[in-house]
């Protein structure tokens, strides 16, 4: 099967520190991958570098065999919840509608069926009762679900999510994981920056262990071992009194 995402030798720096060094990996379609690594390992930077929101120093990235600008519409991105100002005066449905702006067309106004589509996406996230609620009045988990609904409305083939499960309630975590699995079953590909090592094996079929460069990558059963985790988290785990591989 042709890879959905091919990354070769991706290198990027942040404030003069090299945060990504020769990152190379390939992702197959219909997979659900966790990107895991210690703080400062470059997980968020990796997503941003892939999506050309962060400058890269070297390396090639191709999506569906094409460079990013050509296939933007097929790629969905769910940024960290904290990346926007939730005090912005708008309601949940309106935020979800933003996911459809590409389909609506630039400089054109959304029509009724766009609104219905956005409502559908909200329903899939169990958020239909909050459609007209101010986004500032939603809980953290609800805000995260609105973000995911917006990505669903976009109807992409490949999704990147930055820490969607960080600081959310149990219900939201369940809804989000069910949605991601549904996407996977529809043949879509999902990459998730994830922080909780406990749930990696339950939630994801593939894992990418990252610490500036790829420490391990593959099916979770093979690649998510004590040895690879130890290598990725090295110093941190030893400091916590655990033996590293």
């Amino acid at each position, binding site marked *: 099967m042709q890879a959905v995402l091919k990354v070769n030798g991706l290198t990027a720096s942040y404030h003069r520190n090299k945060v990504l060094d020769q990152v190379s990996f390939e992702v197959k379609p219909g997979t659900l991958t966790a990107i895991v690594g210690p703080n400062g390992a470059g997980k968020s930077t990796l997503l*941003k570098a892939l*999506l*050309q*929101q962060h400058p890269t120093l070297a390396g090639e990235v191709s999506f569906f065999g094409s460079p990013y600008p050509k296939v*933007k*519409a097929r*790629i*969905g*991105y769910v*940024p960290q919840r904290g*990346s*926007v*100002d939730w005090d*912005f*005066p*708008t*309601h949940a449905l309106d*935020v979800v509608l*933003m*996911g459809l*702006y*590409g389909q*609506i067309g*630039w*400089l*054109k*106004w*959304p029509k009724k069926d766009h609104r219905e589509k956005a409502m559908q996406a909200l329903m899939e996230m169990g958020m239909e009762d909050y459609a007209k609620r*101010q986004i500032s009045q939603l809980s953290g988990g609800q805000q995260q679900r609105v973000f995911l609904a*917006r990505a669903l409305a*976009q109807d992409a083939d490949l999704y990147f999510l930055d820490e969607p499960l960080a600081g959310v309630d149990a219900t939201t975590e369940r809804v989000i994981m069910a949605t991601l699995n549904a996407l996977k079953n529809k043949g879509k590909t999902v990459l998730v920056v994830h922080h909780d090592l406990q749930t990696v094996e339950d939630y994801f079929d593939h894992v990418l262990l990252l610490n500036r460069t790829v420490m391990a990558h593959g099916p979770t059963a093979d690649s998510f071992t004590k040895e690879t985790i130890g290598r990725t988290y090295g110093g941190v785990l030893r400091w916590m009194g655990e033996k590293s591989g």
Partner: protein
Amino acid sequence: MIQLSHNAQWVLLSTFILGIAAGVVGCFAYWKRQSLMSDALSHAALPGVVIGFMAAGVKSLPAMIAGAAISALLGAALIQGIRSSSRVKEDAAMGIILSVFFGLGIMLLTLVNRMGGGNQSGLDSFIFGQAASMVRQDVWIMTALALLVLMVAAVGFKEWKLFLFDSAFGGGLGLSVRWMNGLYVFVLVLVIVIGIQSVGVILMSALLIIPPVSARYWTNSFAGMVVLSGLLGGGAGMLGTLISTMGKGWPTGPFIVLVASGLFLVSLFFGTRKGLLIVQLEQRSQRRRLTRASIDMRSLKEEYSHEL
């Protein structure tokens, strides 16, 4: 009703439209968290105004607007440059550019006034604004440019919203963030340069900052905020100008700002969204409900204890 001259009516109309444009663009600056940027850029426009005057040799608004735009854009570029190439943070960079450019502008202004001898250049009015000094042609230029700004804001309204709320996501959808940033600085500078003759470089930013802040107290939708901010800005522009025409030689800028501040105070206290009064009332009714609930609880408990 005050009888206004034909010219004064035109001037009023132009400050009304200017106020609308400033209120609308001010909303963009508000959500870009760059309200102070407008202050830095309007101060940075002063040297350009004077240089434009010197280049043209006469008081020609097109030349001075062009000069103001160039020097404000230069200021914006320098702020960006300082921020990205040094450890200096944006607020400090803005402070540096604001004071250096304004100082330079005042220096040039003094020179020009000296050279002109007794010949009053009328350039002083650019500091505090003098709407009455506008001639018909000035009014036309100002109004046309303000309408251009409003058109840019209206045509791409959906894109502005996406850009201001979540530009990273917008970039992923194919919205050019670089283009939007350029367009944003363009409309911001345009509003500033057309406003400096009537409002003045020192106070122009108030017309960009106060209306959006006031509008926020009345509405929960972005479109509502932009429209209301425009109306408040337009109202302040027109009313302030009207008051300033009542005295001979009264500057326009301060009156516009005072009217805008008055509207802000009204919004702060009586605004239907988080206005101080409504918050007070809500808290009081909530407290009352709580006490009533706890009284109910207590009597319920008493009943219950009797049964025991």
